[in-house]
């Protein structure tokens, strides 16, 4: 691997960190390697907003190559939203461009005296005064910074006003709408007075066996392009699943309380394709191009919403106006806020308003009526500016609920808002949300796709009924390990690439000889290391739970009447994982199996 560039924003000290070779083999890269690198620094007493708090941008061994859907990078640290492990990966072109500079990552510590942005041109780093862009939205910031540095082809990763103001679900944004949205790392960057990092490189990515890599990646890209799912995502975006998700009852409505929304077809990927779609967009070297470009009534082309944003600002708030959803998503992107957590937190506000727990006295006169786009828009402005009730919304749904004495109503796990794939439709998601290392995340395992049918016996991930219970627990763990490999590479989770191809790509890029079980072991190792990090940060078995709403049956829709047998599933999951059933910690034996025995002294002392 290439070095990591370490930058202290206080002292402006710069150094290169060489990654130990054995860590490359054991953790591969991306979020897994970040967990190994950051382990010593993520302590219970670390304030995520302190200068000491690390912010690590890391690529994987395939990032930036011409492999299948490998244009992503990850940002890691300690989450101000959850107080736990934070990781958030992002597409676009910024990650590959960083590798073209000759670095596989950037490791930030410290806090600048005043707002700065960094400009990395190959291996030449400069600090720029960010006073002129502080307060600008993410789209404006990218344009201003590109103009100031004046180098064609530079890519800018930036925070928006929400990150500057410490909104706990602020993210980092690049390439007009590509986001590292979850876990609040944009606010960590803001706390460091770090507005943005611009990169432009001219170097080649090192490949151990380029002549062997080329045919594998070529065949992999051709095969991926012919996949049904790739066709689906190319033609309709991730919103393609809206219709089917509605049919199965997996798409939440009215803040996870309704199974039916009569006009839901108005917000589907099919409808988007037939109405406002003007084109597609792709990340670096991606053959899928799931990104949407839409044209609204003003005639301007803009980013179209993907599935999570559509549900977040659509059916979950009882909104069926695709143009309005597009604009609300863009508002979040411009402020620099995660649409999933933003929509989820606003959903709680509407829910509590309906229940009479909050009133117009709390909202500053705003009436929160389901389906009211203007009220949603107003709340987003207040949140990003931390004004009025927005000061509490900016803290996320758990803290918002706590403030109003209704934490149990918040649909979140460990401080991260639940993604929009309901465990009452796909029981496997119950375990995914409860045990994900970063809170209720769907990208640590897209098990909803397995529950839909994307099982693969070749990798030991079998197909179970979507409402099966404890018998699928080991299967969920297996799939989490596989997705952890993807998050290490960092490969897009939409790339349905066979395991032998993945192994071939890694081996020819890194000069390794890894087989399928080596990859799964690497995935399991990183999953357990992230668990141990969280155990050190105070996470225990009590944290592995689902919010109340997800354990109450839907009254109607495709999953009416069902709730997952969560306790039985969790027991079986602990057994499958080799975790202590009392504490939820990986046992010393399990840690030793994974060559993580050095962790045991910290979590079992």
């Amino acid at each position, binding site marked *: 691997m290439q070095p990591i560039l370490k930058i202290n924003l206080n002292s402006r000290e710069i150094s290169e960190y060489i990654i130990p070779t054995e860590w490359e083999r054991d953790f591969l890269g991306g979020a897994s390697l970040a967990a190994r690198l950051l382990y010593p620094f993520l302590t219970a007493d670390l304030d995520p907003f302190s200068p000491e708090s690390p912010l690590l941008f890391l690529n994987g061994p395939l990032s930036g190559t011409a492999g299948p859907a490998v244009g992503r990078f990850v940002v890691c640290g300690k989450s101000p939203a959850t107080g736990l492990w934070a990781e958030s990966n992002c597409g676009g072109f910024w990650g590959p461009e960083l590798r073209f500079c000759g670095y596989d990552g950037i490791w930030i510590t410290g806090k600048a005296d005043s707002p700065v942005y960094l400009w990395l041109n190959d291996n030449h780093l400069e600090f720029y005064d960010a006073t002129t862009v502080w307060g600008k939205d993410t789209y404006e910031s990218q344009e201003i910074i590109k103009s100031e540095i004046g180098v064609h082809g530079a890519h800018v990763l930036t925070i928006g006003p929400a990150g500057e103001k410490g909104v706990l679900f602020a993210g980092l944004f690049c390439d007009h709408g590509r986001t590292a949205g979850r876990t609040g790392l944009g606010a960590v960057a803001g706390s460091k007075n770090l507005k943005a990092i611009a990169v432009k490189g001219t170097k080649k990515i090192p490949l151990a066996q380029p002549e062997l890599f080329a045919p594998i990646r070529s065949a992999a890209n051709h095969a991926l392009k012919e996949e049904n799912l790739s066709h689906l995502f190319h033609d309709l975006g991730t919103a393609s699943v809206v219709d*089917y998700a509605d049919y199965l009852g997996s798409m939440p409505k009215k803040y996870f309380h309704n199974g039916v929304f009569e006009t839901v077809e108005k917000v589907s*990927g099919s409808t988007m394709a037939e109405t406002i779609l003007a084109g597609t967009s792709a990340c670096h070297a991606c053959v899928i191009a799931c990104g949407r470009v839409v044209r609204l009534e003003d005639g301007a082309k803009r980013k179209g919403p993907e599935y999570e944003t559509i549900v977040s600002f659509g059916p979950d708030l009882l909104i069926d106006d695709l143009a309005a959803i597009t604009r609300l998503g863009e508002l979040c992107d411009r402020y620099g806020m995660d649409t999933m957590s933003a929509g989820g937190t606003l959903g709680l506000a509407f829910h509590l308003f309906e229940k009479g727990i909050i009133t117009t006295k709390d909202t500053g006169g705003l009436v929160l009526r389901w389906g009211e786009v203007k009220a949603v828009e107003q709340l987003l402005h207040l949140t990003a500016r931390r004004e009025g009730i927005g000061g509490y919304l900016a803290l996320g749904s758990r803290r918002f609920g706590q403030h109003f004495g209704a934490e149990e109503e918040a649909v979140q796990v460990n401080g991260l808002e639940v993604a929009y794939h309901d465990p009452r439709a796909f029981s496997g998601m119950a375990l995914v949300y409860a045990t994900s290392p970063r809170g209720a995340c769907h990208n640590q395992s897209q098990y909803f*796709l397995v529950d839909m*049918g*994307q099982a693969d016996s070749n990798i030991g991930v079998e197909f179970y009924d979507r409402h099966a219970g404890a018998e699928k627990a080991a299967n969920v763990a297996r799939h989490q390990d596989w997705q952890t490999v993807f998050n290490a590479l960092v490969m897009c989770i939409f790339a349905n690439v066979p395991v032998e191809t993945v192994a071939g790509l890694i081996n020819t890029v890194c000069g390794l000889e890894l087989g399928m079980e080596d990859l799964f072991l690497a995935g399991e190792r990183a999953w357990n290391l992230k668990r141990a990090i969280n155990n050190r940060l105070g996470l225990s078995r009590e944290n592995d739970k689902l919010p109340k709403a997800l354990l109450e049956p839907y009254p109607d829709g495709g999953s009416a009447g069902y709730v997952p047998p969560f306790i039985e599933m969790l027991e079986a999951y602990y057994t499958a994982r080799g975790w202590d059933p009392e504490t939820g910690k990986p046992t010393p034996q399990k840690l030793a199996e994974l060559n993580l025995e050095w962790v045991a002294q910290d979590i079992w002392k």
Partner: protein
Amino acid sequence: MAAIFPSPEWLQILSDKLNSDERYAQIAKNWESDMCVVITPSGPLTKQQFYYLDLWHGKCRKTEILNDLSSVQPKFVLTATYDNISRIMKGELDPMQAMLTRKLQVHGSMAYMMRNVPTVLDFVRCAREVTTEIL
């Protein structure tokens, strides 16, 4: 009635089933599309087979066994090996699972397909119900 899959008799009985099944008629009432199922050789099947069905508003207007796709331009072409499509007919392989795991290739309007997943699934139910034996 039931029939051996795949065969001309099977296609005719499936057509009769689609034209008499009330549940299918209700679920597929808005479906307006023809399709061709292409069965590629595997197992005992040595020659590619083409089964054409014209489906319209919950009914089957026409079926035909073709030599190839040169004479028709169906809105959907579904392609699978004999082994995989047999497993779907026997209920061993879920049709969505087949679609998501490279076992059933779909060419056609994805927008239309995703809007009508219930119709597709009920079509498969009807096909399964008329299939008693596999070649």
